[in-house]
């Protein structure tokens, strides 16, 4: 974590606490980095893309995914149980009438297992403070212009759940197989800051 904020005062404090814990033998040297790497290992937006493509081609899977995402992603071999406790996953589906976008205003909660480490902008104060207040303007900054008739719902990950957006399937993709469809899905599409 501190690798991206080496100069921040909090990074110095973290290093100091880490050193104290190591001196007392409560932590092995490098243990925290190993734990972080293990938590992030295997997480990739490709997982979210594969789940999305399956939902596009299989209406039954789509229904199960929206009703109980933790169980449904197990059908594809994915799990939200990589951390200290299994995280609850909620998948929200975009439609012609409603567009969803995900944020964590209090910190940076994110479905790492399905999307990999979060992008820097997702953790930025600018995104976190603005998107709950003026999502349409923020989406415009991302190049997404939604019809005025499309309702926007912002999901703030304020407790234990993690969220993933199920994007709309693009037009004229009837001829594509599941693998090709997965290739169309972007990380931003799974957060809701892009359409696919």
């Amino acid at each position: 974590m501190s690798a991206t904020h080496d100069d921040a005062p909090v990074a110095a404090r973290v290093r100091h606490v880490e050193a104290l814990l190591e001196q007392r033998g409560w932590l092995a040297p490098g243990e925290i980095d190993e734990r972080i790497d293990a938590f992030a290992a295997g997480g990739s937006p490709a997982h979210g893309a594969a789940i999305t493509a399956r939902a596009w081609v299989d209406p039954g899977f789509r229904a199960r995914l929206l009703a109980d995402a933790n169980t449904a992603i197990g059908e594809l071999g994915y799990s939200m149980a990589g951390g200290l406790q299994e995280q609850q996953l909620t998948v929200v589906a975009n439609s012609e009438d409603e567009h969803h976008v995900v944020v964590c205003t209090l910190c940076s909660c994110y479905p790492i297992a399905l999307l990999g480490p979060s992008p820097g902008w997702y953790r930025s104060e600018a995104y976190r403070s603005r998107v709950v207040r003026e999502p349409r303007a923020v989406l415009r900054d991302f190049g997404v212009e939604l019809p005025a008739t499309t309702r926007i719902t912002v999901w703030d990950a304020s407790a234990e759940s993690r969220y993933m957006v199920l994007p709309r399937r693009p037009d004229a993709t009837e001829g594509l197989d599941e693998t090709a469809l997965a290739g169309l899905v972007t990380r931003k599409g799974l957060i809701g800051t892009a359409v696919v």
Partner: protein
Amino acid sequence: MADRFAPGDRVRTRIADPPHHTRLPRYARGAHGEVVGTAGHHPLADERARGLASAPRAVYHVRFRAADLFGEGDHAVVLELWEDYLEPTGEETRP
């Protein structure tokens, strides 16, 4: 203990500004919203952060109109809130 709320219930969030960690964001204090889903049972983050024992209790997805949070905006915000943060408003469920 039975869950205090169910989807469709109108609720108001607590207005207090606690002197400790909490997961009720400042922008959503004292706001009216509607329970739209349940999100399991979890120990209260406010208590865990202070090293206190905390029994799991119901957590809900609560939908707020932007205008009720910020005085403007035509979107909605869904927050995930422990039942401790919520009070019933006594209003009828909106059609």
